[in-house]
């Protein structure tokens, strides 16, 4: 269970509230407004990859092509899809990706 840090507005009744989300479907979750309307919100994972760059190209070069591509796209967009979150964290931990 996870309480979002920001408020959302219910598309049905317009009420603003801070939702609590349970299970995630990818990067989204269903929430219910105080008036009982159910809708989907996006749940960012909070991992920032803004101002990041590849620092250790030698190690980065060991990764499969498609993975290299995916990591570069993540850095460019600043958004980490759920399935790449663990990999991005590990790359940061060992200094392959460095964020300022």
């Amino acid at each position, binding site marked *: 269970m*996870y309480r979002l840090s920001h408020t959302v507005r219910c598309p049905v009744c317009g009420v603003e509230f801070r939702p609590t989300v349970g*299970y*995630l479907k990818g990067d989204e979750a269903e929430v219910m407004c105080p008036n009982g309307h159910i809708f989907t919100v996006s749940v960012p994972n909070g991992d920032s990859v803004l101002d990041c760059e590849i620092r250790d190209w030698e*190690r980065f070069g060991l990764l499969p092509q*498609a*993975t290299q591509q995916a990591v570069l796209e993540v850095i460019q967009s600043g958004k980490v899809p759920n399935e790449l979150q*663990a990999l991005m964290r*590990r790359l940061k931990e*060992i200094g392959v990706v460095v964020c300022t």
Partner: protein
Amino acid sequence: MKLVEELNVLRYYKPFIEAFGGVKQVRTALRWSEWYAVKWWEEVYNDLGLQSIRESVFARALFISLKIRDYVREDGNIKKRPEKPEYPTNSYAMEFVDLHESFDRIGAVNVAANKADENTLAVLYSTMLSQGWYRILRQTFLRLMEIERYPAVFEPVVKEGHTAAAVMEITTPKMYIGFDYRRDNVELASATLRTRPGECGGGICIFQAPTACDAVKIARRYAPSGVDAVLMLHTLYWLLDPVKELTCISQIIGPGGKLLVGQQVVESTPGLIAIVTSFGAKHVFSWKGVEQILRSAGYQLSKRYLKYMPYYIAVWEPKRS
């Protein structure tokens, strides 16, 4: 592969094969896994000799899986070499082959001699878990197991939380309990599932425990009447003491509950199983070995889907006496 097994693969693993672009692409990917395994074994054998299989699970995985395929002799010498396959055209098959290539660059001898950089291996493991082919493999397995039929699930060794996340893409379990013995995995899995380690708020409980036996004690607090399914997708070889831990695990399975097993075995893809052992898996099993362990731990077979291709898949349940 025997005909019956081959028919079962087509029957039960169709979505996976289709995603791979058909049987031919799957075969090409498998042939690459064999080709790399032979290459790696040759390098390890030339450098470290046959005794490497006593010191390294990685070398043992290579040796056993190649011996049963008749590529190596008892003494470790190469008996025959597979022809280098064509590069696949399907993107999932490519990813699978590229994983082998990446691993090849770390160096089989380095890995067998325990000299490979652990962080690089951890990153490669993370890479594998995030690859598209692995995602399809997970989904196919969970759909085959009809995971939505089980409201309360216990997953020993959650790794980075990808399997749990895949379950939640399919269904919304009432309760999902998972543990890992590694702190980093517990944190990664919790982040993936947007929960906090050790907290058990909205039905997802991820925590750290040294063994499955310790984990079951904790899990019982969350699920006093037991769970409906224990999910073990490529998890058996991570258990330090499989029989003992599986015996403990049976105590968290409630009435009518099942143990859902998917496990790479030595009869599966030789290169891949060797790669996974390099990531820290503790054992290599044959499919019969898997069944022996489960029987010794007090389980009985409920249904076997596949013996080894692409990996062992079966449903077991605790033997009720």
